[in-house]
């Protein structure tokens, strides 16, 4: 790694640590920004690097929420009693029960989502292109509808988790750093992964799956592993969200197919598909756009968002990174030779 790069990484890391203290009013927004970065990076693992455009990654977010919450509650109380009280009963959690349950819950959410990605993937990875997108979207919508009708996990009411024990502002900073840790971990993981043989194999699947298959790459296995790695991080992010939101319900906050489920795709397209930094840049730009329109265009924010999706997809599909790569190839380590015009006489 060159010196320039080390300085860049160090300054970004330093900024991430200082940010919640420098801008205390924006604690929750900054935490959400990390959430967007996580889901964008993990979406790009399959969407950008492997060529499988999933619209159902939100399934792992929602499932992560539920698994984390159920593990935390189940370690201390009976889940059926807890959810049927719908927040009305008195259920105290000691600090150990809260933080211990949270740690186990978030990890458990990641592991569970990884495994479920393998199960769902072995059914859906036979679908290609738009069918894969529609199929995974169907899985996410169906899961939301089924959970909303499942009374044992709270049904349409959702689950109310205990509030962070301690100062509210400390809680905000605590969740910010949890998200930041998962976000940095997923970025470093993706950065490492794309440099390995594994990364080359999934790029081969994106470029031509039949040829990759013929070259002896066990394509299904690679696809399943990639999706389950992505699902691990999304599941953990969902688990953290569950504790941050305190109360969540299935259709609007857990399996929010047309909110976060589509935002992550737009983030990646905005930043640049199939690049390492694209999802990060896209998530930051998208989050800024969203917060600004939500504050100043209230009522019209969804129209603006839909327009952003259409414009990005139709006119600006290479994203910021693709545009930069076109304009400044030397930044990407590409040598460009000036065109020598030789006139033969």
């Amino acid at each position, binding site marked *: 790694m060159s010196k320039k790069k080390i300085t860049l990484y160090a300054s970004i890391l330093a900024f991430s640590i200082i940010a919640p203290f420098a801008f205390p009013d924006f604690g929750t927004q900054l935490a959400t920004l990390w959430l967007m970065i996580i889901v964008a990076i993990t979406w790009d693992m399959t969407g950008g690097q492997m060529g499988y455009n999933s619209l159902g990654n939100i399934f792992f977010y929602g499932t992560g929420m539920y698994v984390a919450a159920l593990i935390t509650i189940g370690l201390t109380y009976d889940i059926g009693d807890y959810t049927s009280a719908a927040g009305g009963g008195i259920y105290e959690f000691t600090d150990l029960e809260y933080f211990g349950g949270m740690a186990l819950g978030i990890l458990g959410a990641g592991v569970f989502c990884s495994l479920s990605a393998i199960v769902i993937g072995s059914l859906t990875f036979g679908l290609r292109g738009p069918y894969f997108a529609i199929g995974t979207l169907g899985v996410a919508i*169906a899961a939301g509808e089924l959970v909303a*009708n499942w009374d044992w996990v709270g049904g349409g009411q959702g689950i109310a988790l205990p509030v962070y024990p301690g100062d509210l502002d400390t809680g905000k900073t605590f969740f910010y750093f949890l998200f930041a840790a998962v976000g940095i971990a997923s970025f470093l993981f993706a950065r490492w992964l794309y440099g390995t043989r594994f990364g080359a194999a999934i790029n081969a699947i994106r470029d031509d799956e039949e040829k990759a298959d013929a070259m002896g790459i066990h394509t299904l296995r690679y696809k399943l592993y990639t999706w389950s790695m992505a699902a691990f991080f999304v599941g953990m992010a969902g688990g953290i969200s569950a504790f941050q939101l305190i109360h969540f319900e299935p259709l609007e906050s857990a399996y929010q197919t047309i909110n976060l489920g589509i935002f992550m795709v737009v983030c990646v397209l905005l930043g640049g598909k199939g690049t390492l930094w694209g999802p990060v840049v896209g998530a930051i730009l998208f989050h800024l756009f969203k917060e600004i329109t939500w504050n100043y265009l209230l009522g019209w924010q969804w129209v603006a968002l839909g327009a952003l999706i259409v414009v990005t997809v139709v*006119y600006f599909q290479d994203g910021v990174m693709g545009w930069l790569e076109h304009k400044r190839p030397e930044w990407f380590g590409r040598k460009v030779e000036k065109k020598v015009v030789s006139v033969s006489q």
Partner: protein
Amino acid sequence: MDQVLGNIDLLFQFPIVNLKIILDGIMIGALFALAAYGLALVWGVMNVKNLAQGDFVIAGGYVSWWLVQHGFPPLLGVPVAFVVMWGIGWVVYKLVITRVIERDLFTSLLATFGLAIMMAQIMNLMFGSDTQSVDLGYPTLHFFDGFIDLPIAKLIGVGMAMSLAGGVIIFMKSSRMGQAIRATAQDARAARVLGIDTEKVYAFTFSLNSAICGAAGAIIVMVWVIQPFYGISYSIRAFVIVTAAGLGNLPGVIAAGLGIGALEQYGSHIFGIGYQQAVAVMLLLLVLLYRLIQQRRNRQVLK
């Protein structure tokens, strides 16, 4: 679980309930089939998968509802919605769709998804988020000691849906434009070589799709209710039907539409009304899986 078994038991004890469910299902399915036929047209001719299909339906419903609010007779809503949605479809085509035809399919899917979000929200801002419907004021017929209710409005709706579908079929078969559309669907390049203005054909096809959806919506507002955010469920059903029937298979689309309408009614009867959306989505997944297994037998994948 007991309730589910009880509901199934009911079907056997009172066979007349089956008839009621199937009748309801066919009536709903006829309207699904209209939206699905538009989708199959656009999908087959220009390879665009339109996720805003359901929002065109709802928009057509609001056109009709708006007319009734301003004192026009309700049945006028169907032709007016057809014309208005034709115009909206043309504008959408010129602004967005024409630029995604040549791209990969995920692009059109996502672009129309963005469009769907925009349309739903604009309708929400214009008409409010309450459910709306238009009352035709016709009586309801009763059969079998009140076991089966048959509102005349629904019969009129189904009749209009059928005549619209019939009209489109005849148009596609016999008119010059219909021939041009079919030629473009078979081979766009060859059609261009033979002097067909494919750009015009594409614009016409998309506008026609939008108009069919609009007319379907105008019928739906007479027999059920509409709401700005109901669009996605019609889009999902249109996808289920087209995926099940395959492209360019018009009788198949209609049969699949009627069948899915009936299956959905059975699903919501057996599992409870809360599962209606879930049943529709599960049907989509089952159809995809079935097609996948079918393809795998030939060592192919669903592309």
